[in-house]
Each structure stands twice: as C-alpha cells, then as structure tokens.
C-alpha cells in the first residue's frame, strides 16, 4: 500500500531582502503592526457608525469626526502643541533623573555586599508604596510647581529601573565571574565587560515599565495647580464638560505611550542583537 506524502513547500527560499538591511532589521514591526492597525481601524469605524446613528450621545462620547475637528482647532491655535511640549519636558527630565538615580542605586547595591544590605531592604519597602499616594507628601516637600511633578516622575521611574537592573546584576551567571577571574580581568573590566552587558536585558525591561509609569504619574502631577500640560487640558475640559477635548488628550497620551514603547523596542533590537545573532553577516 502506498504511503501518503504531502508537499510542504515548493518555493525557492526568499532572498529578496538583504540580511542586515533596513527592511530586514525592522521586519519584526511589519506583520504585527499591520494586524494591530487593522484592529484599531475597525474599532474607530465601529465608533463612528455608533455616533452617526445616534446610539452614542455626543455629550457622553463624541464621534471620531468631532474629536478630529476639535484636535484640528487645538492645533490651529497652538493650544495642543504648547501643552504637549510642557508635558514632554516634564517627562523627559523626570525620566532622566529617575534613570540616573535607579541605575546608580542598583549598581551600588548590585555590586557590593554593603550596598545590598544598606539599599535593597529600604528599596523593597519603597516599591510597595503606591506612588500616587505620595503626592501629598511631595507637594509639602517640593511645592506645587514643576519640581514636584518632575521629582514624582523621577521617583516613580527609579523604582522599576532599580528593581530590574539590580536583579539583572545579581543574576549575572557565576560562571562568567569565574571566567573573568581566569582571564585576570580587573574589577572595572569585570563590571564593564561582564556585569553591565549581563544586566542590560533586565534594565531594558525596567525601562519599558518606567516609561509607562512616567506617563501615568504625569497625569496626576499635572492635575495639581497647573497652567500647562496635557493633564491640565483634561482638568479644564472636565470642568467645562468639553468631552471632545478630553478624548483628544487621551488619544495623545495613548500615542505617546505607544511611541515610547516603540523607542525601547528599537533600542532592545539594537542592544540585544547578540541574542539572535543579528548583524553577523
């Protein structure tokens, strides 16, 4: 009796995209991106249909068209840009300070026994506190100006950076430390060649969390006595019942979140090329 066989492929291997070229490097975005976009477009279409047919009350949830025209107005009179710019600045400084603090502390406690016993315990306690609950304290300490907002973001950012980087440093394979001894690496070379690159994947995970939490804390910070910023726009619109403006701001937040995630993903691709052996050819 004949054994049934099946043809799995008749294609020649695809050699059209050059290895290491731009298209190959960003290929990871393509498939998933298109599919994701399709889902979003579908949701927007459904939203428009529901608004147009009057199922959705425009005072509760205005349709995409209304939101878009509101966004147009806000851009036209510069309202959106100025507020976005002040928000971006706060996030930038907050993330920068938080990064520096988180990395510094994690190096201190990851690399030395003394640092670990001094720093790690308190940090584990601090991480358990909800940042938002600290807002009142931050207001008492730093006032209601930009310092408070930036420092709150920095604080919130430093925690996931610390937790992950510290775990990364402590998780560096002992065998590599033995190797470093074998090839007589100095302490600095050990840190530079073994510990830091070994902790990098964890650090990047921390960075993703950190950026997400940065936008979150920004909203809370900007709800206190602010005359600028996306959060301020939301508060004002909430008081006057301008639902369209609120939606515009929410969309901006969403886009910012996606953008920062995208930046970290590109960073990961570059920094962790060794994991997949990319860029070898």
């Amino acid at each position, binding site marked *: 009796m004949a054994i049934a066989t099946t043809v799995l492929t008749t294609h020649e291997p695809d050699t059209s995209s050059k290895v290491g070229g731009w298209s190959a490097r960003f290929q990871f975005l393509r498939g998933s991106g298109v599919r994701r976009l399709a889902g979003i477009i579908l949701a927007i279409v459904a939203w428009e249909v529901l608004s147009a047919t009057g199922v959705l009350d425009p005072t509760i949830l205005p349709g995409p068209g209304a939101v878009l025209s509101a966004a147009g107005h806000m851009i036209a009179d510069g309202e959106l840009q100025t507020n976005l710019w002040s928000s971006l600045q706060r996030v930038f400084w907050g993330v920068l300070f938080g990064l520096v603090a988180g990395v510094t502390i994690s190096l201190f406690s990851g690399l030395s026994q003394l640092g670990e016993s001094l720093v790690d315990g308190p940090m584990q306690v601090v991480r358990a506190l909800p940042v938002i609950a600290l807002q009142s304290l931050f207001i008492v300490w730093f006032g209601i100006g930009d310092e408070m907002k930036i420092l709150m973001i920095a604080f919130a950012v430093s925690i996931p950076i610390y937790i992950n980087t510290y775990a990364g440093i402590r998780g560096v394979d002992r065998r590599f430390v033995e190797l470093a001894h074998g090839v007589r690496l100095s302490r600095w070379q050990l840190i530079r060649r073994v510990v830091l*690159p070994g902790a990098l994947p964890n650090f990047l995970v921390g960075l993703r969390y950190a950026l997400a939490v940065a936008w979150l804390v920004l909203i809370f910070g900007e709800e206190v006595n602010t005359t600028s910023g996306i959060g301020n726009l939301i508060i004002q619109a909430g008081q006057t019942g301008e639902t369209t403006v609120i939606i515009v701001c929410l969309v901006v937040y969403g886009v910012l979140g996606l953008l920062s995630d995208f930046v970290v993903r590109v960073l990961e691709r570059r920094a962790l090329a060794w994991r997949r052996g990319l860029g*070898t050819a």
Partner: protein
Amino acid sequence: MMNLTKTKTKTKTKPKTKTKTKTKTDRAARPSTSDREVEQPTDLLDMFDGLWSTPVDERQVVVRLEGVRRNFGDHVVLDGIDLEVRAGEFVSILGRSGTGKSTLLRALDGFDRDVAGYIEVPERRAVVFQDARLLPWARVLDNVVLGLKGKQERARARDVLGEVHLTGHEDAWPVTLSGGEAQRAALARALIREPHLLLLDEPFGALDALTRITMHRLLRALCDRHNPAVLLVTHDVNEAITLSDRIVVLDHGKVIYDKPVALPEPRELHHEGFASLREQLHERLGVVLPGREESATDGFEEQHARTG
C-alpha cells in the same frame, strides 16, 4: 627551554592545617614521587612498565602540589594530593564523578581560595571549561582578547583564531557557533595568553563523538606547537590514553594511580597496549565489565579507531 622561574607564583593558603616545612617532611618520608603508585603493583608487568617509561626528565617542574586538601563542611573532597607536572607535559586526570577532579583544577587556577596545602603553578595559565563559556554579548574576536588590550592583541587573536580554524568567524556572535566552534574559540582565548599551564576541565565532554575526534587532533597539534604543560580533567579513558604523556587517577580525593603512558604515537585504539591500559584504568575507576570484548562501548570505539 624557557626559564619559568620568574613566572612562578606560590599560592600559600590557609595556614590552619600544615606549614610548608611540615608537608615537605611528610613528602620526604614517602617513596619517590615522580612515578609513584600508591597501591602495590599487582604484577611484574606493572613494575616494568614504570621502569621502562621513566627516562630522567630534566624539564622544569612547573606545577607542584603537596598535601593539598579541600573540604566542604565534613565532606573531604581533596585528601592530601601530591602532584608534579613538568613543562610541556600532558597529564590527564581521571576519576569518577565527585572524586575531586574539578575541585583540583579550580584550586590550580587559583579560583578556590579555601584550599589548604602547598600549590605552586606558573603565573601564566589558562582554563578551558566544559561549556565554552563565551560571553554571549561579545563577538568571537572580543571574547578571545577578553582582558587584553591593544591593536596587536587583536591581530594576534586573528592568528590564533586561524590556528583553531575559525578564520571568518571573528565578528560572529557566540550564539551562532556550533558546539565545536564555540569550544575552539574558547581554546583560542586560552592560547592567546601563551599559558605555561593549560587547564582543561572536560573540554570535550559536551561534544559529539565525531567533533571530539577532530578536537583531539587539534589539541595535540596546538600543544605540540605551543608546548604548555597541560592538565586535562576527563571521564573518558580513551581520551586520556590518546592524548596524554601521563595519567593520574583520583579516587576519594586521593591519587591512586600516577603513571606515564608508554604507548607509541599515534595511539591506536585497537593497539594491544591501548586495550590493556584501558582495562587497567577501568579497573582503577571501578568499572565492572561483563566480558572482555562485549562492553557496550565497543561499537563506538571501533568507529573511533577507524576515523581516528
């Protein structure tokens, strides 16, 4: 012959047990150490074996261990090891799992600071582990020059990579290498340091049989060219016989066998002396074979002999 005196280091550790002088006297009380067998020779051939293969060796002793002890809690892993290795000598250390082979190697590398006894090793030494232990985030060339600085070192690294047949892989990530390639890169990393003592901790244990044969030949060639003293820790009796000038068997932290391999080169598996030495070593290692030629490893060994 190079003078190694200046490159020697004395690792004197844990004075808690015995001082150097004390161990010296201990040693003097014992019979000759160069070709010692702890148990009495069982037959005449054994005794002659020793006599024939001991021409006066004038090469400098570069590794000297006296009364080396190591215990983890109550568990004694190294129980008074005495051992000498001369420059350029290839010594294999055989032993079952848990007999302290790797512990001994780590002591010789200086990684283990809790070893008691007298240990003297060359300053310039290098280790190759069972896993190639390449830093995954560094390209092959950067792995080879790890800890070395300068343009010249990179040029030398290219040469050494050529010696281990890895030319063209300089910029590869370790993850893209096969097991054999990774282990050759690890060898290159060791050789570029021009070690006077090369410590090999079961370097071929994780490789497939065919790759292992290739690696054996490569290692022999490299050792002939660079001429370091070699200490190879292995489970594989055939590997030990094929490669070494001398074989040491450890059991329960003690040296129970230490003799030169008096077989002509190249070492053939089907050679009569090879088989009898293997049997002798198996006996020392406590391997019980059901019948002489019916062991399960025969198929492999025949193939080994043909290709090797």
